[in-house]
């Protein structure tokens, strides 16, 4: 499930907002990246570093 979840998120989303303690801590927008692959890479790096425990 953990490995499947991030793909479910980035594949269907134009924008991703990361909430922590009631505040937006981070956001990703496909328009801010040169390509879908770079968007995906950036999100996955952030997910693996900061979010993976959230989904365990």
């Amino acid at each position: 499930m953990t490995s499947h979840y991030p793909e479910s998120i980035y594949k269907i989303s134009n924008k991703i907002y990361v909430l922590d303690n009631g505040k937006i801590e981070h956001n990703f927008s496909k328009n801010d990246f040169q390509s879908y692959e770079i968007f995906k890479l950036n999100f996955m790096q952030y997910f693996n570093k900061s979010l993976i425990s959230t989904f365990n």
Partner: protein
Amino acid sequence: MIELIGISKCFDKKIVLKDITFCVNRGEFVTIIGKIGSGKSTILNIVSGLIKYDSGELKINGKIVKISNRNYIKDIGVLLSCDYLIEEFSTLLYWKCMGKLLGLTTSEINHRIEYINYICQISDPNIPISKLSSGNKMLVKIGTMLLKEAQILVVDEPFTNLDINEIEKLKEFYLTVI
């Protein structure tokens, strides 16, 4: 277009949202993620008109909306994460009842159910919902959300309790809808 501008919300003096600002443009699919209790569902409930915010502004299509001015909710379809299906009903009976509660005519309901059946493809819409898989129950909720022709869809925890195959099916569905 949905705009949240400096939205804050407290529950019993506990701050659950602090100065939330973001917008969702027409045709966009926006995902909010975070730990349990981070405020995700609170944002979705505010946008859906289910709870009021304490400060800031919520605009839908450029107009400021408040809980006292609920006209805008006719444009919003909502899928909640809690259990609210009447599981003794068949999918078709449930959709017909929900359509009546939404004020649709019988003809409108039948027309919408025809469309929803095509989109959702419930395995058997005539058996009680209780006998459906988790994935199919989620599709019943999605169908209910689509009963009215909403411009905005608000979906809370769309992949909870689903297996990988069901997630794949729903992912394709959301890609189709947007």
